[in-house]
């Protein structure tokens, strides 16, 4: 029923479902593009499976995850609990890295990571690993779930409140920090509220406290009077103010805009017209994220040629993408450290704004960090591609440098290499005598290059 509604209102828009008959071949190249956006790349096996399944079924598979996803979830939570014994956020980063590499449900992890950046909370300030884990689990539970419920939960999440310096909020001196971030960063975006709104909204959250690591409502500190926020005057008891903010017309556009940036393209910024059908869908679906994500993933706009290579890979996309595309694994502890070095420390966002993404991933420092991290990953003694060492895995192609470059390019890059670059890589391969080094160096050089940073 929902799909029918979806189809009819979106039919004439770029969000209509991708049709292989009209919009382009449904082939390996397109499936790998979908996997780069919806997951973190995919193995040869998964690619074959999705090519055979067709666009709608492929999206479906990505949204529901592999068959054993539920069992593996329980095991991963058990592992998390063991890791929590150290009470070290850095160990939690290693745990999440392991999950990203091995998860049977990569789209859910991608969305969890998205919410982590959206509702940024950092281990540098929130030193209780348990609090961070609880928040992470919340993001995972509601990854493709109900945004309203998610926002309500986050608004009273101890880790969030500690990070935003909002552990106390007094009637006499309302803490505007949280109110501002709620509107600016979480729901509406800059420019869609006034300073007066911030002050009034801050009054709604008076009495919200975090004591002993738990959320508590201190009724003595609560200002129960009437507040005027964005056109409505009310007492806004409980957390009704959060609902009011979510009900603002700019909210769905803000969220959908962010999803666009996550899934479709970093730039140019999408126009209001382009986002309107999705915003409408989000509201119609009562703020459930899944239908919107499904629409986006299956759409012409995302699957069409114009979207291929329009995003800059985040460090996770780069490293985890490399591993998942080659059915690989590595030391999660080492990789988590390297992700931090590349600017994407899991549980360690740089500030409350999370990660802006796009071009902000790129600077001299981060590009060097990427090249060095890739080198370390490929050479690490624990790294395996398809259960064998990288040298051994690549040895199937290293006899012929042309073939080596082609096979890697096909699996790992979003765009085709220009002839000159390809020649350079082939020459690099030819110039290395030892076969077991050849594959690794060519792989590192290819993945550190500018075009490999495109997704």
């Amino acid at each position: 029923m929902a799909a029918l509604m979806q189809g009819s209102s979106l039919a004439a828009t770029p969000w209509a479902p991708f049709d292989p008959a009209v919009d382009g071949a449904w082939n390996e190249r397109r499936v790998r593009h979908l996997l780069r956006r919806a997951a973190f790349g995919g193995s040869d096996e998964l690619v074959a499976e999705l090519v055979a399944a067709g666009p709608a079924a492929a999206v479906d598979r990505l949204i529901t995850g592999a068959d054993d996803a539920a069992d593996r979830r329980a095991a991963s939570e058990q592992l998390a609990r063991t890791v929590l014994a150290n009470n070290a956020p850095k160990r939690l980063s290693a745990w999440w890295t392991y999950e990203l590499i091995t998860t049977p449900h990569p789209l859910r992890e991608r969305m969890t990571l998205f919410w982590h950046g959206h509702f940024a909370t950092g281990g540098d300030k929130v030193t209780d690993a348990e609090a961070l884990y609880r928040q992470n689990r919340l993001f995972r539970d509601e990854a493709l779930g109900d945004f309203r419920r998610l926002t309500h939960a986050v608004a009273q999440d101890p880790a969030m409140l500690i990070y935003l310096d909002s552990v106390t909020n007094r009637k006499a001196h309302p803490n505007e920090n949280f109110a501002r971030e709620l509107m600016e960063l979480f729901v509406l975006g800059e420019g869609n509220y006034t300073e007066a709104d911030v002050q009034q909204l801050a009054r709604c959250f008076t009495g919200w406290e975090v004591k002993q690591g738990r959320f508590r409502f201190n009724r003595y500190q609560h200002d129960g009077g009437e507040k005027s926020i964005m056109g409505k005057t009310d007492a806004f008891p409980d957390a009704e103010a959060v609902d009011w903010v979510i009900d603002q017309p700019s909210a769905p556009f803000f969220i959908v805009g962010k999803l666009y940036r996550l899934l479709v393209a970093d730039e140019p910024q999408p126009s209001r017209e382009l986002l309107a059908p999705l915003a409408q869908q989000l509201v119609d679906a009562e703020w459930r994220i899944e239908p919107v994500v499904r629409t986006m993933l299956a759409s012409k706009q995302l699957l069409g040629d114009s979207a291929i290579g329009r995003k800059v890979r985040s460090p996770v996309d780069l490293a985890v993408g490399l591993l998942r595309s080659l059915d690989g694994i590595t030391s999660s502890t080492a990789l988590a450290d390297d992700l931090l070095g590349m600017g994407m420390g899991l549980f360690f966002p740089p500030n409350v704004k999370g990660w802006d993404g796009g071009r902000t991933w790129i600077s001299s420092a981060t590009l060097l960090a990427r090249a060095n991290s890739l080198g370390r990953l490929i050479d690490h003694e624990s790294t395996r591609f398809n259960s064998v060492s990288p040298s051994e895995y690549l040895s199937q192609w290293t006899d012929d440098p042309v073939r080596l470059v082609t096979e890697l390019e096909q699996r790992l890059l979003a765009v085709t290499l220009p002839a000159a670059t390809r020649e350079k890589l082939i020459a690099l391969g030819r110039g290395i005598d030892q076969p077991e080094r050849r594959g690794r160096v060519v792989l590192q050089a290819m993945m550190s290059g500018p075009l490999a940073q495109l997704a």
Partner: protein
Amino acid sequence: MNNRQRLLQRRLFLQQGAVAGTALALGSRLPGILTQAAAAARSRADDGDRILIVVQLSGGNDGLNTVVPHRNELYQAARPTLRIASADVLGINDDFGFHPACRALADLLEQDSLAIVQGVGYEQPNRSHFESMDIWHTCRRKEERGSDGWLGRAFDRHAETAGNDPPGLFLGANKLPAALVARDTQVPSINSPEQFKFQGADAQLVADALQEGSTAGEAMTAEEDELAAFLSESTAAAVEASGKIAAALEQSDGGSSYPDTPLATKLRTIARLIESGFQTRVYYVEIDGFDTHAQQADAHRALLEQWSGAVAALTQDLARMGRLDDTLVLSFSEFGRRVAENASEGTDHGAAAPVFLTGGRVAGGIHGDLPSLENLDDGDLRYHTDFRRVYATVLGQWLGWNPTPILGQSFEPLNVLRG
């Protein structure tokens, strides 16, 4: 016109604020870039890439025993065991002398490269390390504090450096000091210069491949591949920067010798980065251990020696490079120490303390009077110079950035810089 020139032109074009579409795509940073592009261009022309290096002395440096009022009887009476005798100080003027461990600083003073600002602090002094340091970092008291620091705010408003280099850099293993935390800008912290080189056994091969790979490719001129072009250019810049730094770090110090101490090693790294043409304008380092509650004499001597030796070595190196006039080093501590010594031959947390500025354009000598040793604030020196005036001087007169929006109010700058 080759690809690279075309790309650079395009960047300039963006900076001038045209092409709204691509501009907006860069996110909320851009409004700043648009309005500040003109200002940045102007400031660069005026201030010629001036550099600020902040040295934070953590723990509370005992200013009274650094710039010593050795003849003052109240001083002598308050510190029977810790006082520095007139015979031991390195004279500055009739009333003051340096702690004997600060020989290197005394030399700088003679070369007119050191300015000392007395009595710096703030009202209602807070004697907790964390609180007071937070105040120095954010310029806000606890109730109004956000997470960004004074330099972070400055970067958010003014970060436009060429060549993808970060506007500020922290050298150290600890987490980024609050002073550098910004909302929009990322300030990297590096533990060692190794992080700026291609590492691994195959480093050179990879670097070469990237260099050629990014300049090759005619296909990158098309409009639709502007993103690819940006990536190409950035990669080339990264390889170049890495090469410059590797070369700079390998070359000798050109005769300047740095002492073998942690602080000196960090300052040496900064000197190498500056020499390699790194465009970063603000560097930040830290030296810890000044919280000398007991047995102060030896510990303080060691720290002062490390600090003064490192700063002096850096100054000499900058002079050799010809960059001394472009550089300003600001050394500060979160508070001073009590006038009277305690029962453990140490001193407890205090309030006002001196701040030190070194560089080629400082007005050498002592600025301001030592606060009265008689009229104390609960046993501590009373401040007379708000620390934000120091920041205002550094931001406004040195870096060319309007201090008022950054500090929240207008503060009268000090007269410590020449030219």
